C-alpha cells in the first residue's frame, strides 16, 4: 500500500483512501478479504467485483457520463486507483443547506435525472443509488456518479426501476420534504432515458411491493 494515504471511508466491502498517485490526488479503493469465506472463493468473488466495478465506471466514461476516471486496476491486491473529484455529496448539500432556493435545487435535480437516464441508456445499473453517491463538483457544480461497487450491466426494465426506487427510498428517508425534488429528478430522467415510459410505469409497481420481487407463484 502507498504511504501518506488517508482513510476517508470504511464500508462493509472496501476501504477508501485518498492518496498521491502519479502526481495527482487519487481515490484508492481497496476491497479486503472476508475471513468468513473460503479463501479461494473469496479471492475469486473479490476480483470479479473489482473488475465489474472498473468496467461499469469505464463504460460510463466512454458514454460521456461524468464519473471518476479509472487510473489503475490492481487485481492482485484488489485495489482500484481512480480520479479524486473534489466536491460535496448531494446528501451534504441537502443536509447543510436545507433551505436553498428552489431554483438551485431544481438545477441539481435535473442534473441527477439526466445522469441517471444516460447511465440506464447504456444498461449500467448503479445498484446503490443514495444521495451520498451523487457528488457535486466543487468547480462546476456538475453532478458526478460515484461508488460503482454494486453496479452491473442489465437491460431489464425491472432492474432500472429498482435502481430508481432505491434512490427514492434514500431521498425520502434521509431528506424530509424533498418529494418535489425527487419528482423533478424523475421528470428529467423521463426526458433523457430511452425507455423511460416503461421504467417509470414499472417504478409504480415496485413502490407497491418494495425492492425485492416476490418469488411466490
Amino acid at each position, binding site marked *: 500500500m502507498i504511504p501518506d494515504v488517508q482513510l476517508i471511508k470504511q464500508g462493509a466491502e472496501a476501504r477508501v483512501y485518498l492518496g498521491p498517485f502519479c502526481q495527482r490526488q487519487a481515490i484508492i479503493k481497496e476491497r479486503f478479504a472476508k475471513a468468513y469465506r473460503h479463501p479461494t472463493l473469496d479471492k475469486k468473488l473479490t476480483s470479479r467485483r473489482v473488475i465489474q466495478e472498473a468496467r461499469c465506471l469505464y463504460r460510463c466514461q*466512454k458514454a460521456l457520463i461524468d464519473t471518476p476516471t479509472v487510473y*489503475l*486496476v490492481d487485481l492482485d491486491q484488489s485495489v482500484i486507483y481512480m480520479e479524486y473529484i473534489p466536491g460535496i455529496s448531494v446528501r451534504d448539500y441537502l443536509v447543510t443547506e436545507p433551505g436553498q432556493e428552489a431554483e438551485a435545487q431544481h438545477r441539481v435535480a435535473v442534473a441527477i435525472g439526466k445522469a441517471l437516464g444516460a447511465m440506464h441508456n447504456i444498461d449500467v445499473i448503479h445498484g446503490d443509488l443514495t444521495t451520498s453517491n451523487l457528488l457535486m463538483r466543487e468547480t462546476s457544480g456538475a453532478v458526478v456518479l460515484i461508488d460503482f461497487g454494486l453496479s452491473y450491466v442489465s437491460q431489464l426494465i425491472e432492474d432500472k426501476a429498482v435502481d430508481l426506487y432505491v434512490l427514492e427510498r434514500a431521498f425520502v428517508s434521509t431528506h424530509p420534504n424533498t418529494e418535489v425534488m425527487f419528482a423533478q429528478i424523475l421528470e428529467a430522467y423521463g426526458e433523457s432515458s430511452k425507455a423511460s415510459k416503461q421504467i417509470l410505469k414499472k417504478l409504480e409497481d415496485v413502490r407497491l411491493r418494495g425492492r425485492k420481487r416476490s418469488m411466490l407463484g
Partner: protein
Amino acid sequence: MESYPIEVVPNAGDVHMACFISVKNAPDLKERLQAQDKSLTFAMVESNLIMDVVQLLVAATRAAKDNDTKKLSTQSLSSEIIYNLSPTKNIAESLKRFGITEDTTSLIAVKIGGDPIEVMEDMSKTVDGILVSFSKLDQEKDIKRLRQYYKIDPKVTEDKDILNWIIGAMAMKNVQ
C-alpha cells in the same frame, strides 16, 4: 530530465524521463532495439503520442507493479512501459505505435530506478538529440493519431478530458 516517485511500488525507485528533439540517430537506436541490445537500459517513446507526463507515469507505474509481481507481458521493463501506453493487448502493434521508428525525430526516454545522474548521462550519451523540457511536449502532440489509437469520442475536446480518456483506456486493457 525529470524524476517522479512511483507511489504504488516505492521500492522500485523513481521514474526518470527526458525529452529529446532533433534526434539524429533514430535508425541506429531502432536497430539496437530490434537486436535486443542489452546496453539500452531505458524505454524510448514516440513523443507526439504523449498528452501529458501523467500518461507516462501511469504506464511506468503499471510496469513497475507487474515487474514486482513477476507478471510482465513483454520481455523487459522498458518494453512493458511502451506496451502499457497502448489500449490494446497486441504487443507487436503497441510497440510499433508507441515506440520509436526510423523516422523519429523527437522522443522521450523513460527509465525506472537507478541513480538520476548516471541515468541522465546514459540517456544523453545514447540519444543524439537536443534535451528539452517537457513543456515543449505541447507542440508535438499528434491529436489525430491519439484520437485514432485511443478511439476518443469526437465530442471529447478538452485536453484534460482527452487525457482522462487515454488513462482510462490504458487502465482497462487487462480487465476488458
